[in-house]
C-alpha cells in the first residue's frame, strides 16, 4: 500500500483530477439506477419544463422527465461510445503499426499512401458518409469510426516501432537469434505502447465529442436512448425558455472530455511521452 | 600578481546554484578569475566542472532556475548587479560570446547576413547599406569566401567550420573587448578545429581583444592561451601561466589531468586515466573535492579545504600536496 500511496503523491495533478472525474462518471455509467433519483424515461405531466429545484436539481423537460436522471443514464451510453469506438481501432492499429513499422518494405509504402488518403477526408465527413451508407445508429457509428480511426493508431505505432527497431537492445536480441515473434512482443511492443496509450485517452475524449455530435445530428444514438448529444438535440427547441434541458447534458460532455484529457496529460507526464 | 596590469574582468567568489527536482546543485562554487586587456585565458576541466556555467553566469544568460551570487566586475562595474538594460548595452558591444554548437546557436530560419546586421543595428549607428558593407567585411575577416553572396545564405547551407566562422563574425560585429568562447571547437573535425583556433588567436591579436576560452582539451589551451585556470567540481583549483602550469602543476588534479592526456604537457609520461568520478554537486563538499580520486591525498585533504596559495610567480593552486607533486612523493 505504501507504494501506491507514494505513487499517488508523486502523480501529476492532472492525472489525479482526471482519475477523480472519470471515476465519478464510471460510477454513474455502471450503476445509474443507484444514483439517479427518477426513472430517466418516466413522463410526469405534473412537472413539465420545471426549472432546477430541490426535487429536480437539473429541472425537467417538456415531458416532465428528470434531467439529472437522464444525464446520469446517458453516461452509460456515452462512456460505452468512448470505449467501443476506440477499442477496435486501438487493437487493429497497434497490430498493423507494429508489423508495418517492423517489416517496412512494400506494406509500409502502401500504408503511407493510405494515411495520406485518409487524412484528406474530413474525419467527420467520412464518418457521416459511411453512416449514410450503413444507416444511422450506434453500432453503425462504431463501424464507421473504426473503418477510419485505426489508421491514426497505426501511424503512431509505426513511428515508434521504427525508432525502436534501430535500438541496440533490439539488434542484440536479433544477434542472439531470438525468434521475431518474441522480439516484437517482448522487446518492441511494451516500449512502443506508451504513446499509443496516451493517445487512446485523447481519442476517447474525441470519440465522446464525435458520438454526441452524431447523436445531436440524429445519426448516432437514436431517441429515446438517453445520450448526451440526443438530450441536447431534444432540448434545443426549448433552449430560450428551458435552458437546463440543454445545458446540463452539455456540461456532462465537457466534464467527461476534460476527464479524459487530464488523465491523458497526466499519463503523458508520468510516462514521459512527448506530444 | 603585482606586475600584472589592472584587470578588465575580475570575477570574485562566483557561485551558481541550480534548483532541480532532486534538490539544489552547486554548479559553480566560489570561482575567482582575473583577465588583463588582450589576455587569453584558458578555462579547462572535465564536463560538469562548471566552466560553461561560469561563462554564462558572467553575461547573465542562465535560466531562471539558477541563482548567481558573487561579483563579475567589467572595468570596475559589477555585471551581476547592474540593471538589465545597461548589461544589454555591454553584451555583444564590449563582451561577446560564442557557443559550442553553431548549428543550434544560429537561428535556422534567418539568413546569416541578417543575424550579423541585427548585432550591428543594436550596437552601431550604421545605416542599412553600412551594415551590409560591414557584414561582408566581417565574413571576409573570419575567412568565409565570396562573402557578399553568403550573406543571404541560411545556417544549414554552411559547413560546420564555416558556420563556426559565421558565428565568430557575428560575435565580433561590434568589435568587443572580450570574447567568451564556450568550447568553440569541440563540435568540429580536428583539422577544422585547428583552423578555428588559429583564427581566434589571430583575431584576438589583431583586434586587441581579450579572450576566455573554455575547453576540456588541454592541447587547445597549450596552443592558444597565455594563462590557464583549471576547474574541478565548480571551483578553480589552479591558475597560472600555461607553460608553468603544464610543466610544473601545483595541484594534484592538474597533474592527474596532464597525465591522462595522450599529448599532455608532461613529456613521455605513461598515460594514466584518473580513477573514479567527479563528486556529486547536490550535497555540500568537505575538504578538497578531488581527495577521493587523488593519489597524493593525505589525512587533512578530506577534512580541510586547502587555501589558494602561490606556488610560483604568477601561479597559484589550492592543494596541500603542491610541493610533493614534483617529487612524485605519494603517501604510503
Amino acid at each position, binding site marked *: 500500500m505504501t507504494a501506491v500511496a507514494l505513487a499517488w503523491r508523486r502523480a501529476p495533478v492532472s492525472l489525479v483530477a482526471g482519475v477523480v472525474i472519470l471515476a465519478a462518471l464510471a460510477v454513474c455509467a455502471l450503476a445509474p439506477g443507484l444514483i439517479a433519483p427518477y426513472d430517466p424515461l418516466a413522463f410526469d405531466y405534473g412537472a413539465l419544463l420545471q426549472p432546477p429545484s430541490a426535487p429536480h436539481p437539473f429541472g425537467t423537460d417538456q415531458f416532465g422527465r428528470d434531467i439529472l436522471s437522464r444525464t446520469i443514464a446517458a453516461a452509460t451510453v456515452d462512456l460505452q461510445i468512448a470505449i467501443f469506438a476506440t477499442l477496435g481501432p486501438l487493437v487493429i492499429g497497434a497490430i498493423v503499426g507494429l508489423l508495418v513499422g517492423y517489416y517496412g518494405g512494400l506494406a509500409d509504402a502502401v500504408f503511407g*499512401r493510405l494515411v495520406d*488518403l485518409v*487524412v*484528406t*477526408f*474530413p*474525419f*467527420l*465527413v467520412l464518418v*457521416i*458518409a459511411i*453512416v*449514410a*451508407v*450503413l*444507416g444511422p445508429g450506434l453500432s453503425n457509428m462504431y463501424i464507421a469510426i473504426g473503418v477510419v480511426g485505426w489508421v491514426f493508431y497505426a501511424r503512431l505505432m509505426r513511428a515508434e516501432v521504427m525508432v525502436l527497431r534501430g535500438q541496440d537492445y533490439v539488434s542484440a536480441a536479433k544477434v542472439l537469434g531470438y525468434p521475431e515473434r518474441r522480439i516484437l512482443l517482448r522487446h518492441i511492443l511494451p516500449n512502443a505502447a506508451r504513446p499509443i496509450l496516451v493517445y487512446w485517452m485523447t481519442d476517447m*475524449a474525441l470519440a465522446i*465529442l464525435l458520438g*454526441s*455530435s452524431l447523436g445531436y*445530428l*440524429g445519426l448516432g444514438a437514436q431517441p429515446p436512448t438517453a445520450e448526451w*448529444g440526443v438530450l*441536447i438535440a431534444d432540448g434545443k427547441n426549448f*433552449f*430560450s425558455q428551458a435552458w437546463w434541458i*440543454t445545458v446540463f447534458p*452539455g456540461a456532462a*460532455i*465537457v466534464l*467527461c*472530455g*476534460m476527464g479524459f*484529457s*487530464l488523465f491523458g496529460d497526466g499519463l503523458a507526464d508520468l510516462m514521459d511521452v512527448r506530444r | 600578481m603585482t606586475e600584472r596590469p589592472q584587470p578588465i574582468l575580475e570575477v570574485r567568489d562566483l557561485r551558481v546554484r541550480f534548483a532541480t527536482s532532486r534538490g539544489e546543485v552547486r554548479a559553480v562554487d566560489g570561482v575567482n578569475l582575473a583577465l588583463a586587456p588582450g589576455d587569453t585565458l584558458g578555462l579547462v576541466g572535465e564536463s560538469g566542472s562548471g566552466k560553461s556555467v561560469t561563462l*554564462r553566469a558572467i*553575461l547573465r544568460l542562465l*535560466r531562471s532556475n539558477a541563482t548567481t551570487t558573487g561579483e563579475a566586475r567589467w572595468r570596475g562595474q559589477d555585471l551581476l548587479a547592474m540593471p538589465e538594460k545597461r548589461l544589454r*548595452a*555591454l*553584451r*555583444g*558591444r564590449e563582451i*561577446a*560570446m560564442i*557557443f559550442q554548437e553553431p548549428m*543550434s*546557436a*544560429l*537561428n535556422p*530560419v534567418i539568413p546569416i547576413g541578417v543575424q550579423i546586421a541585427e548585432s550591428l543595428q*543594436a*550596437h552601431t549607428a550604421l545605416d542599412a547599406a553600412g551594415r551590409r558593407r560591414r557584414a561582408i567585411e566581417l565574413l571576409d575577416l573570419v575567412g568565409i569566401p565570396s562573402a557578399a553572396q553568403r550573406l543571404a545564405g541560411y545556417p*544549414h*547551407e554552411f559547413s560546420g567550420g564555416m558556420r563556426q566562422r559565421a*558565428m565568430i563574425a*557575428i*560575435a565580433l*560585429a*561590434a568589435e568587443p573587448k572580450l570574447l567568451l568562447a564556450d568550447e568553440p571547437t569541440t563540435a568540429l573535425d580536428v583539422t577544422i578545429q585547428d583552423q578555428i583556433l588559429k583564427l581566434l588567436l589571430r583575431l584576438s591579436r589583431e583586434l586587441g581583444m581579450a579572450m576566455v576560452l573554455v575547453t576540456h582539451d588541454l592541447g587547445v589551451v597549450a596552443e592558444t592561451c597565455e594563462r590557464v585556470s583549471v576547474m574541478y567540481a565548480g571551483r578553480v583549483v589552479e591558475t597560472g601561466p600555461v607553460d608553468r602550469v603544464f610543466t610544473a602543476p601545483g595541484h594534484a588534479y592538474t597533474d592527474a589531468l596532464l597525465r591522462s592526456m595522450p599529448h599532455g604537457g608532461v613529456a613521455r609520461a605513461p598515460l594514466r586515466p584518473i580513477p573514479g568520478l567527479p563528486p556529486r554537486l547536490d550535497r555540500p563538499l568537505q575538504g578538497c573535492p578531488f581527495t577521493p580520486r587523488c593519489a597524493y591525498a593525505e589525512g587533512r585533504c578530506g577534512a580541510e579545504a586547502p587555501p589558494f596559495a602561490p606556488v610560483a610567480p604568477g601561479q597559484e593552486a589550492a592543494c596541500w600536496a603542491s610541493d610533493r607533486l614534483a617529487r612524485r612523493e605519494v603517501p604510503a
Partner: protein
Amino acid sequence: MSKAGLIAARLLQIVPTFLLIGVVVFVLARLLPGDPVSAMLGDRASDEAVNRLRQQMGLDRTIFEQFAIFLENAVRGDFGTSIAFRVPVTSVIAERLPVTLALTGLATLIALGLAVPLAFVAGLNANRWPDFLIRSVFQVGLSSPVFYVGLILLTVFAAWFRWFPVGGYGEGVADILWHLLLPAVTLALSFAAVIMRNLRASVLEVLNAEFVDFARAKGLSRRVILTRHVLRNALISTVTLVGLHAGSLLGGAVITESVFAVPGMGRLMVDSIFARDYPMIQALTLILAVVVSLAFLVTDLVQMALDPRVAR
C-alpha cells in the same frame, strides 16, 4: 533537390491524391444498400424507366468501365441529378461552397487572432498564473462539443440579446459577416484551443533554444528577440498545424452549419443523408476531400516559402 523542383514535385503529387479520393468515393457509392437506381427512382418506377436509367448511369458495364465513366464525369463536374432538388448536383454545391469557405476562413482568422497572442502570453509566463488561466480556459474549449457551444452562443447572443440573427446567410459583405460571426466564433473556439496548445509548446521550445541565448548574448533587445527570433520560428510550426486541421475544421463546419442553419455544404450534407440524396452525398464527400487536399497543398507551399530548411 532545388526549391523549384520540390514545388513541382509537390504539385504533381496532387494528381494521384485526386485519383485515390475518386476511388474511395466510388467504392463508397457502390456499397450503398440496394440498387442506386431504385433508390433514385423509388419502388414504383416502371421497368422501362429503370433500365433506361441503368444504361444512362452505365450500371450495365463492368466495374472498371463504370469507374472510368465516374472519373470522366467528375472531371467534367457532372455528378448527376440531385434526388432532393431535382437539379444537377453541381449547381446546388456551387451555391453552397462559397458559404462554407467563408465560414471556415473567418473561423480560421478568429482562431488565429485568439490563439497567437494568448499562446505567447502563456508561453512567456510558463507555469505562472496567466499560463494556468489561459490553459484552463482553452482546456474547457477543447472539451466542448461544437454544437453545444453553438447552441449557447445562439441562445444568448441571438435569442436573448438579439445582437445577431438566429441563422441563415446574408446579402453583401457586411450582412454576410453579421450572419456568419456567431457560427465562425463557435467553430473557432476549439480550433483556437488546438493552435494555442501547440503554439505555446513551440514558443517554450524556441525560448529554450540556444539561438535565443546567442541572440541575448549579442545584446539584442527583448522585443527584437521575441518578434524576430521567437515569433518567426514558432509561427512556422503553426502554419503546418492550421493546414493539417483543414479537415477537422470542415467537419466542424458540418455541425456549425446545422446548428445555425447556415446554407453551406455541411448542412447540405446532413440534409442529404436524411433525404437519401446519394448523388449529393457522393459529390459532397469528394469535393470536401478535394478542398482538404488543396489546403494541404497550399500549406506545404507556404511552409516551403517560410522555412528555408525545407529545400534539402
